[in-house]
């Protein structure tokens, strides 16, 4: 008998699902006034913002365009724009 299926899957297999396709608005990271507070990294519900040394970006494969990062950025370094594809 082969191992039973559907009892488990490995970790993080959700990465195949590119939720970036849902997006209407896209965050623009200006890299201008950023002070490395990393609030954007902390508050992204989809864990798709990464960076260091005042250069942060959203992984556009997964970013759903919710706009929380732009709303919460204390130095207005992120702006939501209508995405033109």
């Amino acid at each position, binding site marked *: 008998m082969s191992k039973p299926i*559907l009892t488990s899957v490995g970790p993080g297999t959700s990465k195949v699902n590119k939720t970036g396709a849902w997006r209407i608005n896209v965050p623009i990271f200006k890299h201008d006034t950023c002070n490395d507070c990393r609030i954007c990294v902390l508050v992204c519900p989809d864990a798709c913002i990464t960076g260091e040394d005042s250069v942060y970006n959203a992984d556009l494969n997964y970013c759903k365009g919710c706009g929380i990062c732009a709303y919460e950025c204390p130095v207005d370094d992120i702006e939501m724009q209508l995405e033109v594809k």
Partner: protein
Amino acid sequence: MKQFIEGSMAVSQSVKLCRPNVIAAYPITPQTHIVEFLAQIVANGELKTEFINVESEFGAASVVLGASAVGARAYSATTAQGLLLMAEVLYNIAGMRLPMVITIANRAISAPINIWNDHSDAVVIRDAGIIMLFAEDAQELMDIHPQAYKIAENQEVSLPVTVNMDGFILTHCFEPVDMLSQKQVDDFLPPFKPVVKLDVDKPVTMGLLAEPTWYMETRYKLKETMEDSKAIIEATANEFKKLTGRYYGGLIDTYRMEDAETAFVAMGSLVGTLKDVVDTLRAKGEKVGILKIRSFRPFPYEKIREVCANLKQLVIFDKSYSLGLGTILQEELRGCFYRQKHQPLVSGFVVGLGGRDIPPESLIECYKKAQKGEITNEFVDIRLDVVGR
């Protein structure tokens, strides 16, 4: 070494020897002695285990689910209403392929409330993908629990197993039992090695959402496994026989069936009564025997057909009844012989519901009735004045 003990004590001592890591306990008559004895065993330091007094049977089943998921050997016991309350979790456990053993002290289901023995509780979960074994007496209860764990934890099976025992009749009655030793059980039952488990060094996700694209395949695999488990149940019983010399059957057992024309069919302690009935009838020249169904799920079609190859009639004594359909064993056994080359008559009698006493004389009356023609769904010893007929 023989001890004169209650069936519940045989269960507790047997479970103790299986070295469960986690025991979830919630009391319900007539299972209470099992969890009480286990509590005392733990309190006396005879067993190192995590003994959890839970808030309900639902909690009990959930606790053993979680324990099995991390690779611990888990045990619980329940009855009727408790089994119904656990039912949601038991389907979950089977679907998640988590091995464990749960002893059911069979009791009638309310309403009306009745704490005495019948099989209506056991059969409620018969479609869940759970292996269901029925024990005949206290000795078998001692012998069956290590086998139940061995079957459950077999990596080709990986399913929960319920051990069914007649409430009060077996839980509370004293019988001489040949006690197993720790060494015997350790030699027979290896440590639990799960197919999959929660482990921070090897993270997995368990219990996912299965959309229509996937769900049907899970049931197919369960079906396959239930079929495969038949051979494993047989092999485990044979292996146990080699260890101790005792054999209470694999999927089934037979008594004086070699030249029988009529076979009595039953599960659990009623088999014991029927052995006396068979001896009485045989002494009068009647060619009767017993087909004991030990594994109710998976249902042993092939084995039954094999031993019934020359029978004229099966006379079933069932302690459960599917209201709106018929006595369950009767329906399943008629189906067993459907369109087979050899089709014996299959008569079904309903006995002992709610703990009603089953005197051997009544069983003999039923046999005589069945000799005159096939009987269907007959309730035995009904007080006609009470039911208004």
